[in-house]
């Protein structure tokens, strides 16, 4: 199965998944996943893809909180492009 990685951000309004080639966003994670599926279908046409998205805690949690818990979340989504 193909695997693709993204950095994930939240800019206060929408979630953004980004790597060297692709940038996709959505107001909710569901919308993000839908938009991602459409974009990947354009590129790969069909098949199953494992998408991993890492939200860097440093980008969303203020510095004073890093010492408490240095992790936010890491999403794994399996998309069926067929």
């Amino acid at each position, binding site marked *: 199965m193909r695997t693709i990685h993204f950095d994930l951000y939240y800019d206060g*309004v929408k979630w953004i998944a980004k790597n060297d080639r692709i940038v996709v966003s959505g*107001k909710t994670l569901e919308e993000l996943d839908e938009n991602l599926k459409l974009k990947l279908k354009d590129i790969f046409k069909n098949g199953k893809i494992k998408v991993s998205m890492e939200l860097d805690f440093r980008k969303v*949690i*203020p510095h*004073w*909180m890093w010492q408490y818990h240095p992790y936010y979340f890491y999403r794994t989504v399996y998309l069926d492009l067929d």
Partner: protein
Amino acid sequence: MGGGNIAEELCPNCGSPMEIVKAEGMDILRCTSCGYERPLMAVEPWDPIEGKLVRYSIIAGIILTIVLAALINVYILSQYS
């Protein structure tokens, strides 16, 4: 602490930072530029799955409290009384 470093929400209208203010007793997010507002916390109805989560946790908690307390009291704390 970070001296006020609350994560900022951006206005979906114009992209400016939003500030938290009180209006009619409720906390709302208001855009500093265009005045767009939305509730900070909307009201959500209670979901049956929440009821299950709470119920099963409490039942498990009560059962485990009784069982573990019995074990600890019999095998450990009895030596200290």
